Structures are given as structure tokens and as C-alpha cells.
């Protein structure tokens, strides 16, 4: 079978070209085609050989392209040199930044002042005690997709590290998928020579993409025994309440004042590489820059987060970023561990001091912490305020806690019964306004029932 004949047959069998559409469908298809031809295309964006591509792909690409105003280029990205190893060759671009290079409001070298124990505590990972930020590799990769699996190619891997007084950014790049093994072998060596890894969401993504591919190629993974600081989790813990999302670009902007120019979103990276492979005009230059910016942001973000507990930079200036959110985040973070409740209380108070309209939620947390650290009277007062000033779920929680405290801490059964009655009234209001989930309602009802029964028993014992 000649190729053209085979192609025809495949098109028909795979229903990729519907053989004979009905008139209604045909009309709809023509209309759709006409629409896509009118789509605005600017000069930078127009692809020179768009004709050779399937319609669906062309349409998808052209609709995406309307977003970006990033220049295209042809061929191998600039300043790349071939690196050779016994496993094969690939390209690499090396760029050096002086230690006082500013990325946003931070100098790269400021990460030397990040406190190791701060990182250990906010990331809750004791292994990080061995991580020296000046000897770490800062890792970020660009892949052909997010799904993972053997067919997802990490075509650009950036490793940043401090060499002498300057910061060296190494970007390994695949000219085609066959170079993967050689580049991964190099990456493994470079990572293994470091004291640990710094990434953003890399514990969940970058590391596994690389590790799976290394196993596939028989390259020993360097990740197993090295400490890994994933900045995503501390950032989200401390600042998520004050930011619109948990992305790296949000983190770098809000905390370090990094503003990117003409950034190409990471989701365009696969397309850029496929264009490069297909010998078409591509936007890899922008992908390299995006990747470079990501790595520089890792450095300054580590510098920032490593000063979270001091709340000052090395030179004594205040640490930028939303202070109230930080205090609140730290309060919640420490509140989870019994031995850190005193510290949590400290941060709750700071948070309340920084935000006059601090939320009821925060005050409930403070009350809970007071109760748990044995300061029942102070807790009681706070709970009372919370219960009386609004009719919401938090008020109900406060009311339930009040009854508990009256019964157990103050052992005032009359007062406890009054508190139970107040909680009941509140519960009725909430049920009437459908403010409760059925499960919350059942739980509250059961708790109140048990408590009032026990209180009545205790009271009668006492009077007897």
C-alpha cells in the first residue's frame, strides 16, 4: 500500500476526516473554518508553514498565540554550547550573575542570611538542617506536559548554584528527545555534588519527572539522600490567605517585588519546543528566560522565607510582604503542634495587633490556644465575646466551648447549664437559617444532649 493510500485509509478508519458529512454538519464546519481564518494574526505570531498542519492543531495554536506578544526565532537558541559526555551530547547555556545582582528587591547573596532553623521549622523537615543555601542547587524544569509518564520530556533543566561569589545558572537543553539520557546524567552529577535541592513545588513535580526518566535511562537518582527544600509549602502556609493563588510568580511578586516583563507562561513551553523540533519559528528564547526567572526567584524566595521568624532582613530592614497574613499563618502553623502552642499564641497576638479588624476565626484560634495552654479565664472571656456578637458557626463553636469550660474548668454546673441553653438557642437560630451542614447539626445536638444530661446528674449529686 502506498503511503498516500494508507494515509487515506487511516483517516477514514480513525474518523479523522469524516468521509461524508450531512449538509447541516458541513455548513457548520465551513462556518467554523471561516471564523478561524478571520482570527487576528500579528506578524510576530504568524507561523511560516502553518499550511502543513492539521486544521485542529492550527486552530488550537492560533487561538493560544493571540495571548502572547513574544518574538519568535528560528533554530538553536542563542549562547548555547554543545556539551559532550560518554552518554552523548546536548546543549547547555551558562549564565553568571554577581552575588549582588538584584532580583526584585532582593540581592541573590542575601540567601546566605536565611536562618537554617527557620527553614526547618516552617517547612517541618529536620533534614533541612543539613542544607546550606550557598551550596544548594536551585532546580526548575520545563517539560512537554504536566501529565508525567515516559513520554513527557524534561527538555529544559535549570540548575543554579553559587560558585565563588557569583551565581551560576546552567540550563541544559535537548535538541531532540534522543539527547535526554546524556543530559540527565549531567543533571544527576550536578545535583549529587550539592548539599541539597531548592525548588518550588518540585517535591511533587520536578523531582519525579527527573527521577522517573533517570530510572528509565539507567541513571542513578541523586535525589534520594539529599535534603530538599520545597518553597511552595511554607509559602502557602504563611501567605496563602493574602494572595490570589499559590503560584511562584505570585510569591515572588508579593514577597520579593519581582515584576516580570513579557513573560511567556509556562503552559506555552511544550508548544515552543515542538515548534523547534518541527523546524518552525519558535519562542524558546522566552521559555529560557522564563525558566531563568523562575530559578532566580527560588534564590530570593529562599532568602525571604528564611527570615520569616525574624521578620527583618540581614541589614535590619523590615521583611517585605503582608505582615498580618504572615503572623496569622505562623500562628496556625505552630498551633498544630502541642509543644509550639506558646509560640502560636505569640503570633496570634501579633496578627491581631497588625489587623484591627482581625477575623473572628483568628480570635477563636486565640481562645482555643488560651484554653489549651491552661489560661481558662482569658479563654472564657474571648469565647463569650465570640458567642454574643454574631450568629454564625464560630459563635456556636464558642458556645459549646464555653459550656465545656464552665463544667470542667470552673466546675460551675449552673453556669454550664445556662451556657448549654444559650448554645441550644443559637443552634436553633442557625438551623432555622440553614447555616449548618446536617453533619454539624447532628454533632452539635449530640454533644449538647450528652452534656446537659451529665450536668443535670452532677447537679443533683451536688445538691444531694
Amino acid at each position, binding site marked *: 500500500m502506498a503511503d498516500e493510500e494508507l494515509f487515506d485509509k487511516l483517516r477514514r478508519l480513525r474518523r479523522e476526516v469524516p468521509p461524508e458529512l450531512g449538509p447541516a454538519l458541513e455548513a457548520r464546519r465551513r462556518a467554523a473554518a471561516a471564523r478561524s481564518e478571520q482570527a487576528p494574526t500579528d506578524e510576530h505570531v504568524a507561523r511560516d508553514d502553518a499550511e502543513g498542519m492539521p486544521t485542529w492543531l492550527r486552530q488550537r495554536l492560533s487561538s493560544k498565540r493571540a495571548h502572547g506578544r513574544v518574538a519568535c526565532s528560528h533554530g538553536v537558541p542563542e549562547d548555547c554550547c554543545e556539551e559532550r559526555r560518554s552518554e552523548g551530547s546536548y546543549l547547555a547555556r551558562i549564565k553568571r550573575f554577581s552575588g549582588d545582582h538584584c532580583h526584585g528587591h532582593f540581592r541573590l547573596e542575601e540567601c546566605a542570611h536565611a536562618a537554617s532553623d527557620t527553614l526547618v521549622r516552617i517547612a517541618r523537615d529536620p533534614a533541612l538542617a543539613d542544607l546550606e543555601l550557598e551550596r544548594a542547587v536551585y532546580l526548575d524544569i520545563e517539560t512537554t506536559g504536566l501529565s508525567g509518564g515516559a513520554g513527557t520530556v524534561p527538555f529544559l533543566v535549570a540548575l543554579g548554584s553559587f560558585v565563588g561569589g557569583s551565581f551560576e545558572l546552567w540550563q541544559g537543553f535537548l535538541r531532540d*528527545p534522543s539527547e535526554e539520557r546524556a543530559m540527565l546524567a549531567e543533571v544527576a552529577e550536578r545535583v549529587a555534588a550539592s548539599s541539597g535541592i531548592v525548588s518550588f513545588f518540585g517535591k511533587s513535580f520536578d523531582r519525579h519527572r527527573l527521577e522517573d526518566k533517570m530510572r528509565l535511562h539507567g541513571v542513578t537518582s541523586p535525589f534520594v539522600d539529599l535534603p530538599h527544600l520545597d518553597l511552595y509549602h511554607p509559602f502557602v502556609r504563611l501567605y496563602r490567605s493574602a494572595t490570589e493563588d499559590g503560584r511562584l510568580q505570585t510569591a515572588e511578586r508579593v514577597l520579593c517585588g519581582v515584576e516580570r516583563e513579557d513573560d511567556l507562561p509556562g503552559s506555552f513551553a511544550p508548544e515552543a519546543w515542538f515548534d523547534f523540533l*518541527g523546524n518552525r519559528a519558535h519562542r524558546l528564547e522566552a521559555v529560557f528566560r522564563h525558566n531563568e526567572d523562575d530559578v532566580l526567584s527560588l534564590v530570593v524566595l529562599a532568602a525571604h522565607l528564611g527570615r520569616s521568624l525574624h521578620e527583618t532582613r540581614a541589614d535590619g530592614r523590615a521583611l517585605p510582604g503582608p505582615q498580618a497574613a504572615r503572623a496569622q499563618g505562623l500562628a496556625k502553623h505552630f498551633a498544630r503542634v502541642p509543644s509550639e502552642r506558646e509560640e502560636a499564641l505569640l503570633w496570634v497576638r501579633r496578627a491581631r495587633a497588625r489587623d484591627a479588624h482581625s477575623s473572628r476565626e483568628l480570635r477563636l484560634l486565640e481562645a482555643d490556644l488560651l484554653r489549651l495552654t491552661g489560661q481558662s479565664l482569658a479563654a472564657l472571656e474571648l469565647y463569650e465575646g465570640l458567642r454574643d456578637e454574631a450568629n454564625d458557626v464560630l459563635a456556636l463553636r464558642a458556645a459549646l466551648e464555653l459550656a465545656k469550660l464552665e463544667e470542667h474548668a470552673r466546675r460551675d454546673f449552673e453556669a454550664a447549664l445556662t451556657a448549654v441553653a444559650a448554645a441550644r438557642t443559637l443552634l436553633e437560630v442557625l438551623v432555622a437559617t440553614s447555616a449548618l451542614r446536617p453533619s454539624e447539626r447532628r454533632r452539635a445536638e449530640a454533644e449538647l444532649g450528652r452534656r446537659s444530661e451529665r450536668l443535670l446528674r452532677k447537679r443533683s449529686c451536688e445538691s444531694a
Partner: protein
Amino acid sequence: MSPPIDPRPEAGSERHARRTGAGVDGIVRRLRAHAELGACFTTWHRTPARPARVAELPDLHPALRAQFERRGMGELFTHQVEAIEHALAGRDVLIATPTASGKTLAYTAPVLQSLLESDGAARSLWMFPTKALSQDQSRSLNGWIEALERDWHSYTYDGDTPPSVRRTLRDRGHIVLTNPWMLHSGILPNHGKWSELFRDLRYIVIDEVHTLSGVFGSSVANVLRRLVRIARHYGSDPRFLLSSATLRDPAGHARRLIGRDAAIVEEDGSPAGERVFGVYEPPLVQPVAGMRANALEEVRRLAPELCGPSHQTIFFCNRRTAVEVLTRYLKEAAPRMGLLPEEVRGYRGGYLPLMRREIEAGLKDGSIKVVVSTNALELGIDIGALDVAVLVGYPGSQASFWQRAGRVGRRGKTSLAVLVARSDPIDQYLAHHPEYLFGKAQETLGLDPDNLVILSEQLKCAAFELPFEALADPDGSGRSRIEGFGDSPHLAGILDYLAEEGGLLYRKDARWFWAADAYPAQDVSLAGNEPDNVLVFDAETNKAIGEIDREHSITSVHEGAIYQVEGETYKVERFDYENRRAYARRVASDYFTEAETDTEVRLLRLEEKRARRVASGTQEDWAVWRGEVHVTTVATQYKKIRFYTRESVGAEDIHLPPEELDTEAFVLTVSEATAQTLGLTVGNRAAAWRGAGRLLRRVAPLFLRCQPSDLGLSTEVRSRTFGSPAVYIYDRVPGSVGLGAALFRDHREVVAAALDVVQGCACQEGCPACVGPVEEVGALGKETAAALLGYLAGGGELVDCEPTLRTGEEKADLAEPEPLRG
């Protein structure tokens, strides 16, 4: 809920009386002597008890040998020994012996041997068609491992495996039990994570490979190609250990499935008790129409004879609702059979796992006396051996039949299997030809891994996993070749297609790499074109109420169609053809709809032809053909038909695009002269011709492993292509999985079976159990169809011919689409 029961049957009660029955022999005696029921048995067949044939243990590791001896297995059945020896000699093996002959042991032994020899380094991957089976096996394997006192692990990896366990399983699972779906979409695309498994993969064990046919089997054959390719990448070269029910052509099936020759073991050495088999044909209730009593009702009449407190009986129904209905009947009738209602249980998919385990245990320990099941109890779930099996209707394939019948038979005791025939051509055929069941396996499994649709989809998945490379000239033929993915000559062409047209691959010199932001295994189904299915939504609530496949959508969810779900009627308001969605509103409809279609088969290419010449001369008498066809089906109009009365209350047109299909067909043509002689004269010929075609299609599953609905039918009284009457029976799988070719090969058997059915049928002028009801085939339809089939079945041999049409112009004709009627 079962009604309350008096737990202590009195002496002299039915239960007491029935305790003293004379076992299965007594049941058979009573049935044969029974005044009414006895006469309905068309056949009784007795297979004498067969002793075990055993042989000495093969040369196994001492620790394993000791375990065998400790379990009282100092000797094994001959087929087990044979299979183990093949495996130890490094051959791929297929053990094709009946259910319960001990196949599991035959592949457990080599796997454990490899672990012992390699000091725990060897890995194996086991695949089962159902989840329950793999869990059963995992337990039994762990029993062996514990007894051997080794720190090895066998794990089940399926959709229920928690993520926390997955990692351990990947790195430390010596034996991984899984299913084809997980292998396809979970393990293979992520083989980097599974490198520990692939590095030293010794065996791939696949159970019940007779279930691997059609689109599913052809897809799985490609999944196995992917598996072997990946194993080779990591430096291992696994052997296959396959097991199946008895097969017609086990060597051919194994070759198509794994792409190489396997040693075949099919001489069963396990012992069997005496088996009695009877076929019950429900009595005629309306002799003219040939209508017989309902099979389920008849089972109700038979039940008191077949059930009792001193033995266990299993009923197999083909539909879930039938299970529920029969279970209720039998529970109600329990006291009259000397049983307690809770001793009668139903069993089917959809019951909660806990309940299923409880029923299985009850069957094993004998506390449940009667169970009514779907095919859910057909595959190897361990319920012990029972005494009496009743099959309500033929289950559609020999393997299923034997698996159901194989549920009975205890060592040293007689067992009984009864097939209750329905009004269906195949059931009718079997009622009079029990030798079909007892002879050798008859069915061909349709399996074609090189079907272009399946192959191209699977090549996507394979390219995602590892790049492809064409070797310049590996065999000195001067042609380049892609190795390790079968022998299709189109591999390079398909890869180029995926690169150039699909934009999915990147070609560099002679290598193809995956280059797309996608995870293909997610979109490639093993069972066919599911993404094309149409979802049916309730227009009011916007909730999905059903799903229907592509080809049936044009006849069941067109605008105006009445769509039925569990007795509720919905009227389709809008069919969004392009987005594969239909919107229907609940209505109280007193009619249902039936769509009419026009099907046209256009011949694309003829591959083979066999013909018979008229005795007196060179003229062609009749012929069979095999070729590629393009089938166009248009839904033309639908009729509204009142429930119960079947009175037609109107008809409307359907406006939908045609359904197109490229596939392979078997064609039967009869010369114009012969057609005249046979009385296929104008008037009745279309009806008779169609009746014969329909019957051929319906009995074809006796020889092909498929459902009648897997075959499409088109009949033409005067085909423009052939210039004579033609019947096309085509494979409904796009690109075909070989059903057309199998029909071409076996057409004589199919014609003979069809003739038997029509001759043996008690009706006078046609009925649903043969050529179709008289309303469809006409008054002379049955007679004419019978004469035609008789003519085709008799006479001289067919000879191979050049597969061309008689004149030279047809080539042009073939390309020209013929206008459709309507």
C-alpha cells in the same frame, strides 16, 4: 426480604423426605420417568468417570519440592507436569484445559522456581480478567510464599490500590497481579517508576486468554507487544505462561496474541466424575407459529425436581433481571422443595462485595443449596464443586458453556447439567446436536492485533513509552524494518501518519519520538470507540440517564425517539450529533419507536473467492467471497408502535448523517439461474433471501467467538456489484478483527447448521427461532429459505477462483458510490 421461616422442619416433612433421595442419579431417573417433563428432554448424554493421569514432579528446587510433597502433591497431573517442564525449559506455554483442572499450579511452580533460583531477584507480572480473580490468586500465592519462608511479596495492583502502597509495590513486589487496563494506562506509560519490575521480569502470566478476542483481545495483544518492548529496554526477556479454556486452535490464538509460538498443553490429566447432560426443549404452545413455552417458566417447573436439601444446584441466567425473577420464584417455592428460603440465593455483579463473599462461603460450606447467578460465577471464583447446573439458554460460547457446566462435578460423584433451550436458532440447534458441545472446540476467536485502527491507537501509546526505530536492513531484504511490534507492513507508514497528520510524533532520521502534550493511554480504550458514545441526558435535570454506542445512536436517540430506562419512557427532544449528546424529557408514552435503516455495502477490494460450477458446464452456480467493504447505514424513518398491541400509530422521517464503516465482509452470491431454479422468484425472494441471511448470521456464533450483534447483515436480491442475489455479513469492528475471514473459511459449517435449524424447527411458516416470523418472511419464506440452504449445503466442492468480478468495468464501479434509497 425473606419471610420468616420455621427453622425446624418436622419429621415427615418435605425436607425430611427429600433427604433420602438417591443423589444425582435419582434425579435423572425421576426426570426421565416424569410424565410431562420427561418428554421434553431431547437428549441425554453421559460421560463416564475418568481416572486421573499423573506423573512425577518435574525437577524443582528442593525447597519447592518439599512444599509440594507436604501438600500431598508428590505427583501431579500429566498436563501440569508437561506445562511446568516447558516453562522450566524456557518456552512460552499455553495450557488449554477445562476449568478446575489445576492450571494455576502449573504456572505458580515455574514462578516460584525462578524466585528460588535467583534468590528473590526474579519478577513476574500476572494478569487476570477480573479483580476478584486476582485477589483470590494473591491469597493463594502468599500461602506458598509463607510456606517457603521467604521475604517475597505478591501484590494486587488495580484501581483500588491506595497510593501509599503503590510505591512499595513498585519497588518490592516480586509478583504483581493486575489487569489489562491497569497495565495499559497505569504501568506501561509510567515504566520508569516500575523499572525494578522490568529489570528482571521472567514471566508474564495471563489467565483465561480465551476471553481475549475481538477488539478487546486485539488491543490486549498490542498491550503485550508494548510490555515486551519495555521489558527488553530494561534488559529482560520474559516468557509467557498462558492458560485458557479448551480452544479450537490454541497454537494460532497464542501466536496472534503474543506474536510467537508457544508450547501447547491440552491433554487434560485431571480426574472427573461421571457427568450427565440433558437438553430440555420447552413444549410447543402454539404449533403453527412454532412458539414454545418461556424458558424461565419452564425452569420453574423443573426446579422441584432439580433442587433439594441434600445437594447443591446452580442456575445460570443470561440477564440480571432474570436472576432476580428466578430467585424470587425459587425462594417462594423453597418449602415445597424441602428448602428454607435463605438456602436459596441470587448472585450477580452489582451486589456488594461483602454479600458476595458471604454467598461464596455459603456455597463452599454447603449451607446454601441453590444459587441463581449471571456469568458472575462463571469465571474461576472458588465456590467448590456443586451437583446440578441448570443453564437457562446457551450462554453464547462453548467456553462459557463449559465454565458454567464445569461448576458441577465432585470427585467420585455423578453430576448433572441441564440446558434449557430458548426460542433462538442456536439453542434450537444445540437441542438436536449435543455432539457440537461434546466434540472438539468449534469456535474461532477473532483476533487481529494489526487492525489498522487498533494498531494505530496502540502505536500512539507505545511511542509515548519508548521511541521507535527502523533498522536499515536487518534481514538482508533491502527493506528497512521496525522490530518488536508484530509484522504489519504498515508500521512505518502509521508512525509517519501520526507524525505528519496527527502532529503527535517527531521523526528524526529513522526514529520516531513522542512529541505532544498528552497522555495517550488515557484516551485509548481497550474495548473500542467509547469516546464516540452518545450520552443521553434528562432535559429537565441535566443528569445523564444513559449511554449508547455510536452506531446505534442514529436509531435510538434521534429526535422523537422514545428512549427507555428501566421501564421509564423518555422522548428525545434534541440530538446534538456533533457533541455526542442527546436530551430527552420524561413522558408517559403509550408507544415505543422503532427506526428503519437502509444499509448499503460498497465493495472496496476483493481478497478471496471460492465458487461452485454447475455440473453440466462452466457456468458459476454459487460463490463465496471475502473482501474489504465500506458500509453506509442511514436511519430513514421511525415508526411509533403502541405497547402490547404493537399497533402502528404513525411514522416520521429521521434526518441524521449516515453512519460509515470500513471493514471486511463475507459475501455469498447465487447465480441468477440458480435463484430461478430454487424458486427465489420475484415477490417472495427478497423476504426469503433475507430470512436465510439472518439465520446464517444468527448461527455464525457457533463457529466464531462473537455475538450475533457483532456481525452486520445486508442482503440484496439483485446486487449491482455482483449482478445476482448477494448476502453480505460483515465484521462491525472498524477495520475488522477477522470475523469476515473466519466466516469465509467456515461457511460450509455455518450453512449446514442453518439448514439444520430450519429443517428441525417445529413451526410451519417461520418463527423467531429460525428464519423469522411469517410476517417478515412471507408465507413461502421458510420453505424457500430451506430449499436455498439445502441447495447450498449439498452438491460438489467449491474451488478457489481469482477474486475478480466477471467484466472489466467493475473497478470503476467499485469507486463510484451508489445512491441510497430513501
